[in-house]
């Protein structure tokens, strides 16, 4: 299998592969460089592993837990996005048990805030919605929480609707790692955690926001959107991310 040229941010540019690891994913043999993760190898070889917080071009946080896989010899499930390959590794990316856990995690996300797909700007272009369908979800069997979440439309071009936020922190990471502004961060903790701009002020008043819109486009759901879109009209464009990462690395 051909090694990829994509380099994860946060890792040093790779020296010529001194050694190659061979591993099995779902019974098939693959080879990879030692600094590559299970997800890297799976992605290169078109093996689907579900995930929501991960986005190619951003650092990995291992927070959504959808990419957990079974690795022979480990009694714990391991997140594919941050687990490095090793020689002789045997990975199972799907099993009835994993499928059940993944469905439950998606269900929990749906119960956490108010995800009303039918009236969402991202309907039809939403990673959460798509993932739910992909994983065979037809309903949520945990009760919904119905929190009162606000919508901040103070920015002249963008809107944040906390009803749709799944706290993946892609916006936090893209703003910090790519744009370098660190406008976004997470406040509070646990079920009350929330993304905020600056000192939890209205986004439109932010002194640090450059209005670049990267956060909007990496957002997996309709939480961040551009103004002027009706239901189902907000399509995200993410092609800039691998490009910016590549250009940045070539400058170093």
């Amino acid at each position, binding site marked *: 299998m051909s090694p990829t040229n994509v380099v994860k941010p946060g890792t040093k540019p790779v020296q010529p592969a001194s050694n190659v690891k061979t591993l099995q994913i779902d019974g098939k043999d693959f080879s990879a460089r030692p600094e590559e993760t299970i997800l890297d190898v799976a992605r290169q070889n078109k093996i689907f592993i579900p995930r929501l917080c991960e986005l190619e071009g951003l650092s990995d946080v291992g927070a959504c837990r959808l990419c957990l896989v079974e690795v022979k010899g480990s009694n714990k499930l391991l997140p594919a996005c941050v687990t490095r390959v090793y020689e002789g590794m045997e990975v199972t990316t799907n099993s009835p048990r994993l499928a059940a856990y993944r469905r439950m995690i998606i269900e929990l996300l749906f119960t956490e805030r108010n995800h009303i797909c039918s009236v969402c700007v991202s309907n039809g272009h939403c990673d959460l919605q798509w993932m739910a369908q992909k994983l065979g979800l037809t309903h949520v069997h945990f009760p919904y929480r119905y929190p009162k979440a606000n919508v901040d439309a103070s920015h002249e071009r963008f809107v944040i609707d906390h009803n749709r936020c799944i706290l993946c922190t892609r916006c936090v990471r893209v703003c910090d790692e790519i744009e370098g502004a660190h406008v976004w*961060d997470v406040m509070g903790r646990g079920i009350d955690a929330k993304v905020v701009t600056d000192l939890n002020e209205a986004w439109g008043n932010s002194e*640090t926001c450059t209005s670049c819109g990267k956060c909007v486009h990496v957002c997996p759901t309709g939480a961040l959107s551009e103004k002027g879109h009706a239901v189902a009209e907000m399509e995200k464009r993410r092609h800039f991310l691998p490009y910016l990462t590549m250009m940045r690395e070539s400058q170093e």
Partner: protein
Amino acid sequence: MSAYVSKPQPPTQDKRWKLVDATMRRLGHQSRGLIETLHTVQEAFGYLDESALRYVAMSLRVPLSRAYGVATFYHFFTLKPAGKHTCVVCLGTACYIKGAPQLLDAMQKDLDIKPGETTPDGNVSLLTARCLGSCGLAPAVVYDNEVAGKVSPQSLREHLSKWNHHES
């Protein structure tokens, strides 16, 4: 740009900022000193307001949103001023088993405030603690800065009425 790079000035002339400055100096004005600095602000002023967060964040070159995220992550920090008196009811396991919930009930009935709230007259703040480590004295309550052990709803009421009569 230049406003950002130049040395931030304390929000007020208050002498207590000197304490905050001293802490930041001791920690080399590095971003890693954020929590320690916030401790100093909280100790000096009793809470962290927006201007304090802004000053500390600028001085330590920490993004504003990160400073806010840190200040709201830790329960020890508060963004609002506390009442004249504080009453901390310990909700550690030992205290819970030995009747801390009844103490909270009594507080709520008498003062009509929930944990984390302050009476409308600003006299008493009710707080809860996860564990004071005074489990041998359960249930424990901290009146202002004084730990009291084996508190009953009755003794709690007596203490509260003292606060109300003397100073409010």
